[in-house]
């Protein structure tokens, strides 16, 4: 090959290479222009679509949960309050390694296995929302987490409103508590109103007046970044807070009443007779309402459910008890109205009462019998035989309808969920329930408040209030008023009905007998009436838990769980009653020894402000 041809070859190959390069770059340029075309299409014809997606990306409608209405007692004492608490929350979808993050968080905060489980369950349905892992962090934990937060992407310390109950256990049954919104709740509530809200009233007033307390959520349109952090607020519609409630409850009285019941099982219901205002409503044992919101250990809730003493039961409205002798004033009125009891008519009360064809006699609590008594002194001394006889003569047909007029065996329409009706038996009920006729002996024992008859403490209290008002039955109420837009809206007292007697003097007769129960020499509760600065009308009751038949041992010698229930009903001052109440102490023995002194304490507290 000569240098000349070599040079020619080189030239040719350089030209060839250049052609190839132009071809390749030309092809590439064409592709680049096609990309430009495609981008042009995206940015012109289709730009609206992408703009919408972009806006949706960074403009977020964030619901602003309203603050829940506060709850006050009748004197303006705060019973339920909102305070700021912090939760440790994550957005599950934004965390790369959830398990690693959780175990890292568990080093910083005391997180229970159950809380992790709950988080994982919740996290399934709300992958893209902040989901709390642990709520109600201690200040120490907040500090510890806050320092580490920058190393924990998508982990948030979230502030939320926590419900605090000033009086804790004392008001737990009345106020109820809040709980996480369940699947069942979701089906019946207006989800729009619950946007941003995580908790719902589960029991008590919190449940009863949920719609008043809740409020209306606001809305905030904000710019958010990919982590969901709000950067700039564009538009804000403030939430409307829930309405504040004013209850009829007297917080101090409530506390005195629950203190008096400390360590006991039972209930106290105190009512203002003229209005039906519930002044105190206590059920013991109670529970710490914080267990439902801010528990450190989720086992606490399990313990509550498993507790044999059933602290979650509101005995005041759900406990159903034989009233024992506290029924006697009402039976006496029934007798007077039906003409079977005649004032001042003497009656010889033997140690026992017998009816034809009954082998077994009905014994009086007083072994030697009461001797000569009247209807009044039978109430004062709590003579069983007189009331056996009276009930027997009246028969269930007369007794049951009269007692029903006092609302016994019916719910009292109290504004608290879960009220039970008790039981006022009659022939129809017996037939339906047992397929048996009503036996006269069953009327006899109903005369002293035993047998099928079951009343709630609330019923006893409202019936007692009706004695105080001489027959006017006011509907018991817990809500006195609520505050809406700064205006107080009253919940007016409501009359449920009236018990009318042919002779109104019979009210005085029974009331005086009840005054004697507390203030007379021979009254069963005389020890509780000592040195009273006002006059009390009361009646003791001792309800048998077990039927011993003919031979009845003294209850106070028995082991506690089969010991009699101790009851007391009262109203005071007799001249112008301001308070009526019913006290029940389960297995407390005689009404005069347990329930009556407690009632006296509550009456003193209310009437003398001896708090």
């Amino acid at each position, binding site marked *: 090959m000569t240098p000349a041809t070599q040079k020619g070859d080189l030239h040719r190959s350089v030209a060839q*290479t250049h052609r*190839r390069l132009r071809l390749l770059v030309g092809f*590439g340029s064409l592709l680049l222009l096609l*990309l*430009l075309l495609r981008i042009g299409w995206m*940015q012109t014809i289709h730009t609206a679509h992408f703009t919408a997606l972009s806006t949706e990306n*960074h403009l977020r409608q964030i619901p602003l949960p309203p603050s829940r209405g506060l709850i006050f007692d009748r004197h303006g004492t705060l019973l339920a309050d909102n305070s700021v608490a912090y939760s440790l929350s994550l957005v599950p979808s934004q965390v790369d390694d959830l398990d690693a993050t959780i175990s890292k968080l568990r080093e910083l905060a005391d997180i229970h296995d159950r809380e992790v489980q709950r988080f994982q369950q919740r996290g399934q349905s709300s992958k893209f929302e902040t989901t709390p892992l642990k709520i109600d962090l201690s200040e120490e934990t907040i500090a510890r987490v806050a320092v580490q937060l920058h190393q924990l992407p998508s982990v948030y310390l979230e502030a939320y409103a926590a419900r605090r109950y000033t009086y804790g256990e004392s008001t737990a049954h009345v106020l109820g508590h809040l709980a996480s919104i369940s699947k069942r709740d979701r089906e019946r509530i207006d989800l729009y109103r619950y946007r941003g809200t995580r908790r719902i009233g589960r029991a008590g007033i919190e449940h009863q007046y949920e719609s008043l307390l809740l409020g209306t959520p606001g809305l905030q349109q904000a*710019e958010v970044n990919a982590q969901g952090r709000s950067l700039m607020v564009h538009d804000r519609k403030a939430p409307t807070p829930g309405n504040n409630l004013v209850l009829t409850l007297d917080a101090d009285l409530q506390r005195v009443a629950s203190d008096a019941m400390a360590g006991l099982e039972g209930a106290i219901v105190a009512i203002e007779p003229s209005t039906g205002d519930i002044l105190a409503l206590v059920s013991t044992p109670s529970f710490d309402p914080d267990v439902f919101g801010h528990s450190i250990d989720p086992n606490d809730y399990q313990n509550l459910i498993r507790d044999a003493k059933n602290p979650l039961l509101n005995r005041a409205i759900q406990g159903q008890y034989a009233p024992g002798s506290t029924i006697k004033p009402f039976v006496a009125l029934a007798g007077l109205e039906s003409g079977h009891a005649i004032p001042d008519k003497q009656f010889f009360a033997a140690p026992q009462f017998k009816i034809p064809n009954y082998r077994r006699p009905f014994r009086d609590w007083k072994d030697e019998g009461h001797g000569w008594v009247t209807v009044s002194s039978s109430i004062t001394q709590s003579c069983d035989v007189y009331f056996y006889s009276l009930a027997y003569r009246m028969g269930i047909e007369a007794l049951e309808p009269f007692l029903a007029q006092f609302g016994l065996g019916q719910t009292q329409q109290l504004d608290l969920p879960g009220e039970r009706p008790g039981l006022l038996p009659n022939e129809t009920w017996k037939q339906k329930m047992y397929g048996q006729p009503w036996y006269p002996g069953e009327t006899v024992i109903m005369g002293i408040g035993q047998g099928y008859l079951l009343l709630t403490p609330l019923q006893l209290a409202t019936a007692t209030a009706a004695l105080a008002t001489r027959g006017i039955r006011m509907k018991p109420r817990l809500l006195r008023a609520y505050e809406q837009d700064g205006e107080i809206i009253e919940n007016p007292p409501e009359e449920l009905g009236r018990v009318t007697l042919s002779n109104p003097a019979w009210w005085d007769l029974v009331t005086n007998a009840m005054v004697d129960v507390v203030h007379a020499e021979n009254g069963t509760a005389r020890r509780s009436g000592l040195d009273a600065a006002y006059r009390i009308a009361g009646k003791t009751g001792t309800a048998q838990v077990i039927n011993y038949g003919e031979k009845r041992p003294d209850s106070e010698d028995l082991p506690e769980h089969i010991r009699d229930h101790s009851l007391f009903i009262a109203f005071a001052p007799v001249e112008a009653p301001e308070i009526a109440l019913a006290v029940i102490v389960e297995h407390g023995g005689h009404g005069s020894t347990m329930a009556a002194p407690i009632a006296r304490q509550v009456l003193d507290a209310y009437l003398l402000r001896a708090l």
Partner: protein
Amino acid sequence: MAQHFYTSAVSRLVEPLDRTLMALLLAVLALSLTIQYSANDMSLQATQQHAIRIGIGLLALLAMAHITPRHLRRWAPALFLLNLLLLVAVVFYGSGSTAQRWLSYGPIALQPSELLKLTIPMIVAYILGPSLPPLSSLRISLTLGLVALATWLVAIQPDLGTALLISAIGVSVILLAGVSRRWILGLGALSGISLPFVWQYALREYQKDRIRIFFNPEADPLGSGYNVIQSKIAVGSGGLSGKGWTQSTQAQFDFLPEHSTDFIFSVYAEEFGLIGVALLIVLYLAILWRVVALSRAGPDRFSQLLIGGLGLSLLLHVLINIAMTIGYAPVTGSPLPLLSYGGSAMISTLAAFGMMMAARHYAHARHK
């Protein structure tokens, strides 16, 4: 007298530079600084960092522009070997968050795979340059073998995207040098046959996911498909004239990941719209065709293949990156030349332009 001396020193210094190409490059670099300021949340510090890298890159360009093709050719094997050694070092001492790609020495972090984008065209031009077509099978096989070796070293980091780019650059320079149809068909058939085996045995699961997602990004909108979806939203919502400088909501609110590096184009398109995109693409095309014009100059085949190879490398990068931002190429993690944030790529790209200018200047000068 002295002034004349300085003037002539400066003019000697800038003499090898191609005025047209320099003007075009500076225009793109100006856009780069502008968009990086916005993509880095208006951080002056980050922008300054970017400016410093551009400065270093321009110095590298100037330095490379003074290295004659003869020297370059002499050093080509050594540089390539050094590059391979660095890649091996990465395997043992490398760092990086998901894959080992970096070599760190004090404050300096080097990505050896970026250097390959210079040394691959050099070594291919070195081997195939001196002989005229038809090229011997030995030379072609040797070249292919070296390209494959480099590709493999990058692929095991693992950095599949860069590995594919490296092999594409290598193959395109070989094509440029001129190979017979037999070779082209043979290579095509070989890669066609090996594809299923590569899928089955060579790819890791996340790499397969990337490819699956490329075909169906909506299948996992919050996982691997997220980047592409967000990038398309950014590009599409830019509209005709864009949302305006620093007004990218996709980048500012972090919806678009890697928005200062791999997806810088999306931010640019969102802020400057179709008009801005057209301007940028026209600038890239002008640069490319200027490079094509430069390659024409020399009868020196080494210089020509080097210029052409570097130019094709630039083209591939631009194409793949822009295609990726609108879902037309898998998300591979390759930067957009001159625009993306990152030192190694910026410096090696500008150095490549220095090499191209030198190749042309001295080839030209010699033949004058």
